[in-house]
């Protein structure tokens, strides 16, 4: 188990090293000449307007909630896709493949029902204009 996760550790270490190295290098090589303009928070290149702590529109929340719901839908598709060969065979797989004449549409059918029900929700969202910003 320790061995299998070594690449993950390498990736984490490399990412952390990169982040620290970029900050450290720019700090070591810069010559600080601060001006009031340079000290302002960067906001897409335009002068910042007002405070960052203002009330945000409920539209952002709508987008976030719809994102979660369709995210969960995808979560159910991952195990389905990984298990699809077994699900589309009426008998257990023989050497990783389905015996002739035993292919079933059980796996396809159950996901189609799942998606059809959620498609109703998607059409409802679309018709109600919840995906439109204004």
């Amino acid at each position, binding site marked *: 188990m320790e061995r299998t996760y070594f690449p993950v550790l390498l990736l984490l270490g490399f990412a952390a090293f990169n982040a620290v190295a970029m900050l450290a290098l720019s700090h070591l090589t810069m010559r600080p000449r601060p001006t009031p303009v340079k000290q302002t928070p960067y906001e897409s290149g335009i002068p910042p307007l007002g405070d960052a702590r203002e009330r945000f529109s409920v539209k952002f*929340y*709508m987008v976030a909630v719809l994102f*979660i719901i369709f995210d969960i839908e995808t979560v*159910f598709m991952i*195990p*389905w896709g990984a*298990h699809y060969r077994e699900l589309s065979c009426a008998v257990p797989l023989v050497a990783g493949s389905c015996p002739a004449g035993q292919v079933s549409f059980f*796996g396809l059918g159950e996901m189609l029902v*799942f998606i059809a029900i959620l498609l109703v929700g998607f059409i409802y969202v679309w018709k109600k204009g919840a995906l439109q910003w204004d």
Partner: protein
Amino acid sequence: MPDVPSLFYTFHFYLFGLVAMASAVVFVTRRSPVSAAMWLVVVMFSLAALYVMLDAQFIGVIQVLVYAGAIMVVFLFVIMLLNLGHPAELADARGLWWKLAAGAVGLGLVAELFTLVRGATAAPYTLPAGYAAQQVAAEGAIAPVAGPLFHEYLLAFEVTSVVLLAAIVGAVVLGKRRADAR
């Protein structure tokens, strides 16, 4: 989880457990809701690491994707919607009695956990030692979840889509009404 936990395994199990508990304590004691939410992300990540160590790799990945990703986004959006202002201006709504009540509920839950861990678990709810690791080795990390989900629990899986549909309709009805009222 190996049959006999190695020192490496035990060390990391307690490490992630302690990180999760410490972050949870910091999470509930923060004044600024945004930094509390960030500590909650740390709790979620530690829990994901514990899931992976218990040979529930798929659940661990989903924990990061759904909880640390999607659910935290919604928490942060709620904080932005409420616009609680600067943390220093916030009056602490949690009075002494609320703190005592929360502490009592917490102690109750800890006591329940201890009883569960120390007491004997009924046979249908226990797995033989190393069972999950054997399954993952034999079938991969996803198949042990996918097999029962799409056979024995097929009805529950299909009902999930109805629950998600209800959530979609609820979000649109509540969200659109408020947006139109402006």
